[in-house]
């Protein structure tokens, strides 16, 4: 059957079983919007294209399935870029569709023209410019395939407006076969054997889990491995939820704002089993003194991640879940870790995670109360800054895909639109965006999207009146010269109300829990303005460039 390009696109999206499109219209996507009019696909009109990209990203992080966003050419597409870069850094499957000016005008500085494939080349896993409507169906199929397999990532498809209007015979490609793209899925058997042997003879093994555990759905295998070899588990920001925080082998997050005991553990361990993690500088600290006596086993789907920052003894390229499965089968004998676990218990007692009470509301307390009020079952997204670190440290995540945060790029303004994507995917779940007063203002316009689509996200602003994380660095490393980090904020309660959302202000500790409970109960978007201790710091903290066990602050 002959179909128009725009209809082919919609038909392909349906066949890819997408749940929703987040997008924004414009001149170069009018044919697509016309097809959307009666397509029966769920569409959410955001108030900014950046938010559409983050929402698609949040949807993907929560479900594991590709999120889809749509924008017009030129400014629409450039507004997507921060969202694409965010998804790229965290390996999130997003398919972005952009309109482009007419094929004959490309390169002419036409109205609303931008070289979008050029601009997004380094922030997408792959991108396409569709020059012929006959290629469209295959390109869309490939885009979804590439976005969601191997090491996932965003893929952008740029479609000139005339291609959207042209007709051709629609042929659904049943299979995708890209000869130049074949991710390695299973670990090399020889390497697996060697790794199993190395694990058996370790005395102070430590499992270091990253986002790859979440991506590949390896949480069960990870837990099985940890329990089988009795090894403690620590995780990165991206690995949160990959191992139950309430498990007795859990050490919490490591790194710059990790627990003291996790950081000591990695430095003292004799075998690091890295699963889907990439030894980021926020995790290793000063690299030349990192984990001096440890051998390293590194499981990662991306060969380019291995031996990038640290030298690895046994690299295993493959999907984390598969490789852990292989490893579990191969493991004959398990190490005796009794002494090691005792040492760790000692460190846990010596350097517990604590915060000091004061007359004011402590952000850590707010997070603990959100955890308690939601019985640990909420889906949490975060902005960036102190709020993000407190959300990572003080909520106990027991399940994968429950902590949604921009790790690699650290994008302020991510959390709220991402929460929207999460809530659209799981309308029955409680979804909280843990926000800062700075970050929330980067995409605050999405209150309109939420209210008009009844996407009842709850926003907990940890309002310290500062760009807190930057202020913290200024306090600690720049002699308290608070250069341009104090904020004069709007009245968030009134602001929420003006959008038709609910607003609650909380200024006393005893109001915290009731406010959270009320917010959960209210059948609307709710913004809670928690007036927290303005100069509270995130501790422990490892100063940039220091060894990862040289922590300051807290009790450590």
């Amino acid at each position, binding site marked *: 059957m002959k179909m128009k390009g725009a209809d082919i696109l919609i038909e392909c999206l349906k066949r890819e079983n997408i749940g929703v499109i987040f997008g924004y219209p414009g001149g170069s996507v009018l044919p697509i919007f016309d097809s959307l009019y009666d397509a029966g696909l769920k569409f959410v009109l955001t108030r900014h294209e950046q938010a559409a990209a983050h929402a698609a990203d949040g949807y993907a992080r929560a479900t594991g399935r590709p999120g889809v966003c749509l924008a017009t050419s030129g400014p629409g597409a450039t507004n997507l870029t921060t969202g694409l870069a965010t998804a790229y850094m965290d390996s999130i499957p997003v398919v972005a569709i952009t309109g482009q000016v007419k094929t004959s005008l490309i390169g002419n500085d036409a109205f609303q023209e931008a070289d979008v494939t050029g601009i997004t*080349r380094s922030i997408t896993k792959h991108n396409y410019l569709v020059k012929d409507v006959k290629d469209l169906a295959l390109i869309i199929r490939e885009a979804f395939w590439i976005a969601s397999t191997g090491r996932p990532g965003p893929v952008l498809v740029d479609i000139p407006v005339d291609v959207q209007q042209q007709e051709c015979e629609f042929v659904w490609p049943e299979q995708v076969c890209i000869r*130049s*793209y*074949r991710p390695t899925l299973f670990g090399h058997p020889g390497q697996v054997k060697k790794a199993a042997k190395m694990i058996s003879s370790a005395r102070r093994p430590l499992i270091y889990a990253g986002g790859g555990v979440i991506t590949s759905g390896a949480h069960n295998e990870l837990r099985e491995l940890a329990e089988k070899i009795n090894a403690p588990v620590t995780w990165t920001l991206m690995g949160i939820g990959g191992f139950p925080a309430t498990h007795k082998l859990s050490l919490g997050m490591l790194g710059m704002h990790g627990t003291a005991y996790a950081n000591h553990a990695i430095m003292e361990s004799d075998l690091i089993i890295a699963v889907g993690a990439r030894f980021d500088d926020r995790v290793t600290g000063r690299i030349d003194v990192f984990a001096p006596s440890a051998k390293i086993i590194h499981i990662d789907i991306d*060969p380019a991640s291995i031996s990038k920052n640290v030298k690895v003894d046994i690299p295993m390229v493959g999907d984390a879940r598969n490789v852990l499965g292989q490893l579990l089968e191969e493991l004959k004998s398990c190490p005796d870790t009794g002494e090691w676990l005792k040492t760790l218990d000692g460190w846990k007692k010596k350097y517990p995670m604590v915060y000091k009470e004061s007359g004011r509301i402590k952000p850590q307390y707010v997070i603990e109360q959100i955890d308690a009020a939601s019985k640990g079952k909420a889906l949490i997204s975060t902005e960036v800054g102190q709020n993000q670190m407190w959300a990572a440290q003080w909520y106990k995540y027991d399940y994968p895909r429950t902590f949604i945060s921009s790790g690699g790029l650290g994008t302020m303004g991510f959390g709220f639109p991402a929460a929207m994507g999460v809530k659209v995917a799981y309308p029955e779940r409680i979804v909280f965006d843990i926000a800062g007063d700075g970050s929330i203002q980067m995409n605050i316009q999405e209150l309109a999207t939420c209210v008009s689509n009844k996407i009842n996200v709850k926003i907990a602003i940890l309002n310290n009146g500062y760009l807190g994380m930057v202020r913290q660095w200024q306090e600690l490393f720049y002699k308290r010269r608070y250069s341009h980090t104090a904020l004069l904020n709007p009245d968030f309660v009134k602001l929420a109300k003006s959008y038709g959302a609910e607003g609650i202000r909380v200024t006393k500790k005893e109001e915290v829990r009731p406010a959270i409970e009320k917010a959960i109960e209210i059948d609307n978007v709710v913004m809670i303005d928690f007036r927290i201790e303005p100069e509270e710091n995130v501790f422990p903290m490892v100063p940039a460039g220091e060894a990862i066990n040289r922590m300051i602050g807290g009790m450590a």
Partner: protein
Amino acid sequence: MRHTISILVENKFGVLARIAGLFSARGYNIISLSVSETLDPSISYLTMVVDTRDEKVLEQVKKQLNKLIDVITVTDFTKKDYIDRELMMIKVSCTAGDKAALESLAKKWGAGVTHCRGNTAIVEIVGDQEKLKKTLEEAKRFNIKELVRAGKIAMATGDLTPKSKTA
């Protein structure tokens, strides 16, 4: 150290930009580059020469090249047996009196003198870098008006051919 790298890629627009982007993002200069179709017109063969002070960085770049969706294989010829060739064209001014000298020089280097026109001649030479260097030295006797060199191309000796990505 200089590395000669060959890359088999899908013959599509934008591929070269993706490859060049990986180098330029790191502030790497590509010393020479040659691209052409292969027997299979859907595949292009790219040979590049890059210089690196940090082998680890190059190792990383090669892995990232391999990650590009349109890249089929990456082969680093360094530490392998291979032959490489470059093409050089030199335009020299050449009066009737010089012509014999120019021709004997060309003969010595297995080069061809083509396109004598008026008082200029173009000499074309194929060879490895060393040969081209020596030829150029000798050719300096003549008044060189222009010099154009093609990027290096390389091929492994023996049975070795680029393998495609593992299944």
